[in-house]
């Protein structure tokens, strides 16, 4: 150890957070208001109806997105959650996840597009994403408490920070990966950059973007559980309680509920990403994929 050599990074960060809290207090109050409102709204929708209504809706969504197998699996899983008496907490967790993921996606996709179109933006964004992704998740909770005190809002903020990175990355990757010749074709016919983005880049990058959305949702769910340490409601509370009491039974029940929600979310969003690829089409005109080089009856 070198005597007297100590970078007071911790002090600086503390001072910075203190300064931010003082000067931007109004902004944070506003953010807190919006996030609380969003969470309360979604949580009310999920918890106020009887559980079987929600189960029916989720099953219908699963069936529409993928088919009866997923629908059946979702039904069994949700009934199991009800069976271990975690329904209300599971719905709170789901509400937190949906709100955080929604905001993260709203930030991630435009940022990803911007990064894909500008090398400079990409160069700035990339290290920030590295930072966000690798910083231990618990660390986000500390400034979040400073800025928003305990409760739902610091949980959502920490979750957004933690989950936003793959959304940005996969959007950028998807757009950069679009066949350069197709983009060139758009330019060659005189399309504006906005039109090329809307009609060529976004549709062709959609599988990658949807994979990003899926990742954002999954990361949000895992972070929402951790966020219970700062007072966010939901399954995480039971898990932390189980941890402190070494209550294996409760821990397993709550943990299993998280897994079930995670699987349903993953399968449904994954299936949506695939069905969006191509609109339903009339199969009237074209016979088998062209083995012949010339139309047969020409």
């Amino acid at each position: 150890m070198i005597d007297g050599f100590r970078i007071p990074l911790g002090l600086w960060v503390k001072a910075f957070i203190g300064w931010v809290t003082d000067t931007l207090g109004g902004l944070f109050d506003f953010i807190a208001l919006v996030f609380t409102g969003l969470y309360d709204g979604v949580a009310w929708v999920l918890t106020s109806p009887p559980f079987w209504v929600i189960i029916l809706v989720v099953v219908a969504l699963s069936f529409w997105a993928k088919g009866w197998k997923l629908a059946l699996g979702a039904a069994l899983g949700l009934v199991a959650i009800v069976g271990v008496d975690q329904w209300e907490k599971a719905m709170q967790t789901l509400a937190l996840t949906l709100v955080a993921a929604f905001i993260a996606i709203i930030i991630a996709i435009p940022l990803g597009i911007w990064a894909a179109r500008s090398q400079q933006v990409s160069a700035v964004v990339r290290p920030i994403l590295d930072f966000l992704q690798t910083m231990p998740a618990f660390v986000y909770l500390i400034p979040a408490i400073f800025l928003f005190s305990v409760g739902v809002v610091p949980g959502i903020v920490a979750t957004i920070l933690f989950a936003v990175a793959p959304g940005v990355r996969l959007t950028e990757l998807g757009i950069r990966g679009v066949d350069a010749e197709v983009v060139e074709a758009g330019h060659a016919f005189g399309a504006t950059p906005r039109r090329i983005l809307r009609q060529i880049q976004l549709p062709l990058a959609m599988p990658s973007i949807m994979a990003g959305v899926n990742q954002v949702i999954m990361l949000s769910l895992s972070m929402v559980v951790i966020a219970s340490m700062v007072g966010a409601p939901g399954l995480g509370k039971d898990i932390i309680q189980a941890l402190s009491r070494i209550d294996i039974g409760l821990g397993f029940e709550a943990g299993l509920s998280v897994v079930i929600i995670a699987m349903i979310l993953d399968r449904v969003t994954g299936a949506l990403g695939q069905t969006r690829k191509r609109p339903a089409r009339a199969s009237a005109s074209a016979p088998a994929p062209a083995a012949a080089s010339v139309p047969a009856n020409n």
Partner: protein
Amino acid sequence: MSETALEARNLYKVFGKNPNQAVRRLKAGQSRNEVLDAGTAAVIDASFTVQRGEIFVIMGLSGSGKSTIIRMLNGLLTPTDGDVVIQGHSVTEASAAELRGIRRRSVSMVFQHFALLPHRTVIDNAAYALEIQGVGRDSRLAQAREILDKVGLSQWADSYPDELSGGMRQRVGLARALTAGTDILLMDEAFSALDPLIRREMQEQLVELQQELGRTIIFITHDLNEAMFLGDRIAVMRDGRIVQQGTPEEILTDPANDYVAQFVQDVDRTRVLTASAVMEPPHLTTPISAGVRGALRVLREQQASSVFAVDNNRLVGVVTDRAVIRAVKAGQTDLRAIVDTSVLTVGPDDLLTDIVERAVETSVPLAVIDGNRRLVGVIPRVTLLAAFGNVPATTREMPIIQTPIEMVAQFTPLVDAAANAPAMAAPEAVASPDVAATEGNPA
């Protein structure tokens, strides 16, 4: 009257650290390799003019800069130096919005790997350019359908590109460019990704469409046969420079340097050379008025077995030695009575590939006649074979046997003509690319 559709003026494109410095040094006479430290010169001092309604082919191997050139023509790449003028508008100086306007109005493009929108149907792809131009949905679909009909894809209109074969996809690419309604079509290695049979079919279709629609086409290819087949004029590129520009025949018969000569060595000559390029001056002729005796004299002097009978330079037919002798014995004097008028003839613009069959059927040389039946030349079988085999018609590069050559020259029109016509551009001259090649390269 032809008018200029597009003009490229001294185009330079250098990729790398210091493009402008590289261009300055290239202009000062340094070579491509000497300026490598400042950047890679993809295109060096390229100038050409494309007339309305012609197919202009830019040909070169990969890395010769042809793809870079075509992308400068519609501003996808900005030239480091020089200018492109399309119908009076400078592409280089246009703002982004003006450039979009030029692309919508004047230049469309067909891509090597088709570059179709995979999430849209064939007809939506074909109508894409019109959509960008702001044409209403019904109108643009109607126009797209019309063009799809022309390229033979109308019943695939509602399919998606990945349901089509390569050739069909490129037809969609072509339809999209044609539907755009622009006068100029840029085609970047458009048929190179297709297999050979389909490629030939597409080439023929393109020529047909071009004749029907009269668009100006700038076609990039690395395939000389394709260039020769399609091009009204060809520019051959090497290492970023245009080394020769001219009609396919000029390039084949009069290559500007060794590189071009080597390049054209393997080309399918029969599809490029026309009768007028290989024909020889008609020596074995006799005026119909000279009668049977006149014909006999020519046959004896030229030691030939048949002679063309002409009337005021117009071909009447062919007279064989047997018929002449028989007529002389019978005391006939009128040549008309014994002329075989069913002689096989070809036009000066017929491709060799089309006249081969006729040449095999007859032992007399083919007569080349123009629209007024004027005998403009003859093609003996040996000439035809020499042209196919790219065999030199003279042996001037071997001076040792100069004397015999000169002797023979008096009797054989083949060598005679070649010796008298060093400028091969004239259509009457015997086609012999190697003569020109050796001239350009004093070994």
